[in-house]
């Protein structure tokens, strides 16, 4: 039983794909690992476990978690509104969601800093409440939220569009409360997409640099992100240490994406089985 292939020739398409993956993705990452590996295990460990590096992981991961949690709720709500409601300007909002993908992150960082600085529009409004965003970890979270929002919206949106409202209506006629319908009907169906969105959003936040360095205070131990520390090591002409620190980010992101892929694959198998 042969399946119809849309792309021409397995060899050609496989060749192009592997070439692409090897040269555009694997080679630079390989060079990074290679550079980091030129350190002995002891030196590597000393660099990646130095108190300042550990503090930077803490700042980066906690802020990325905060940003992702915010985007999980807000991004899902946004996707929901875009799919389920018709309102004037919907298409415009839909297009704006993608803007963080297109905008240079440095521009985003400078714009956010201008808004949230003590004398900016938001900053001056928040100051009387005792909230400072610019140059604090909160600023890092804001920058991460901005740059990673599209991931959750764009992964959840298509699944929501396919979600048959009849399911919810059926649940309603059977007396399900709104909360129960959301928790037991909608959320399980959205879960794989949400998981994918969350992991992409989190991985993006881990690696974000351009937007953050403008709005973070870049204080060692407080608002210094891991990517900046790698950059600082480069400025010292210490390529190996920079690569070592970057490899920690890389490995974290890779492990996380692999785990979510695994969970997703299992979820899909489960869904296939329950369908048949």
């Amino acid at each position: 039983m042969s399946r119809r292939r849309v792309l021409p020739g397995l060899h050609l398409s496989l060749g192009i794909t592997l070439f692409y993956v090897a040269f555009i993705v694997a080679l630079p990452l390989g060079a990074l690992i290679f550079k980091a590996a030129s350190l002995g295990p002891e030196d590597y460990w000393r660099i990646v476990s130095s108190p300042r590096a550990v503090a930077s992981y803490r700042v980066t991961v906690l802020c990325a978690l905060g940003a992702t949690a915010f985007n999980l709720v807000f991004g899902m709500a946004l996707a929901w509104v875009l799919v389920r409601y018709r309102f004037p300007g919907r298409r415009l909002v839909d297009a704006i969601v993608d803007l963080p993908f297109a905008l240079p992150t440095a521009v985003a960082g400078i714009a956010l800093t201008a808004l949230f600085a003590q004398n900016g529009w938001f900053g001056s409004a928040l100051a009387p409440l005792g909230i400072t965003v610019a140059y604090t970890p909160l600023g890092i979270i804001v920058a991460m939220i901005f740059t990673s929002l599209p991931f959750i919206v764009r992964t959840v949106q298509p699944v929501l569009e396919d979600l048959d409202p009849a399911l919810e209506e059926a649940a309603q006629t059977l007396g399900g409360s709104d909360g129960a319908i959301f928790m037991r009907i909608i959320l399980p169906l959205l879960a794989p997409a949400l998981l994918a969105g969350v992991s992409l959003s989190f991985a993006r936040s881990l690696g974000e640099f351009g937007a953050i360095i403008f709005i973070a205070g870049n204080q060692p131990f407080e608002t210094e992100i891991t990517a900046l520390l790698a950059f600082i090591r480069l400025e010292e002409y210490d390529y190996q240490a920079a690569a070592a620190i970057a490899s920690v980010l890389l490995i974290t992101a890779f492990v996380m994406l692999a785990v979510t892929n695994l969970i997703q694959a299992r979820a899909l198998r489960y869904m296939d089985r329950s369908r048949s």
Partner: protein
Amino acid sequence: MKRLILAGAAVAGLIAGPAHAQDKLLNASYDIAREVFGAINAAFVPQYKTDTGRDITVDQSHAGTSKQARAIVEGLEADVVTFNQITDIDFLVKNGFVSEDWQADFPNNSSPWYSLPSFLVRAGNPKNIKDWNDLARDDVKVIFPNPKTSGNARYTYLAATAYAKEAFNNDDAKVKEFVTKVFDNVPVFDTGGRAATTTFVEREVGDVLITFEAETRGIAKEFGEDKFERVTPSVSLLAEFPVAIVDKVADKKGSRDAAKAYLGFLYSPQGQKIAAENGNRVQDEAVADAFKDQFPDVRLVTVEDVFGGWDKVQSEHFASGALLDQIYGDR
């Protein structure tokens, strides 16, 4: 028909364009030198035409000079470098891009002008900041970029250390305590000199900005003399701005003569005047005299005298785990 000929001529011009090659230089420079080299280049182009009869364009690239040096080693084809730190040219020497005796190529150790870390405070100097010791006060917020990523801030760090060494008679513990206090007063570490300026001027963060005197003058000019006040500390560190031909690139592109003419122009009375107009202190006596009122007297110490040279500074202060990292670590 006429139109056809014109079009043909235009196409021929396009094709022939690169053939009678125009001279071209790329100058890799430090972050806050945009204005001065903008003005220098505008003056140099007609001068070069008069001297040689050839057209020339000078392109600029500005960033932290460590980054520039790295970029050149990794393939940025800059013909000349105009840096604010000798160590970054040394990095090019080590990698075989600049000849070892580059400091003999041009007068005054190849530094056409110099500056010093100086202060800029808000109008009226509300916190009454006069000298380095004021920076360690609890009620003062200080802005300068991260010395790890900015040559500008490295001078600031060294100048503060030099002041403390004198004030505390070289008592290392006290010097460290003083510098740590100053660093504790910095709310934001930007990555470059210009970013720190933005933080201080546009975001209105901090009471005093420490940057090259040239930059403090530029800011006052740009944003209004009535908004800021320049304060020159009692003592500061001589910051030479070294220049060099990137031999490897110049030989490859055949641009050595143009590069030499360009860097030589920086020493001409015209070049020195432009540098002074942009807030740099210059060696040319006539020009220095003419701009005397602009540059208050200040006692300048050198890296060689206070710290025993840049190599020592690098290993004792800026290397991973050295004094500067300890100061960060103590917070």
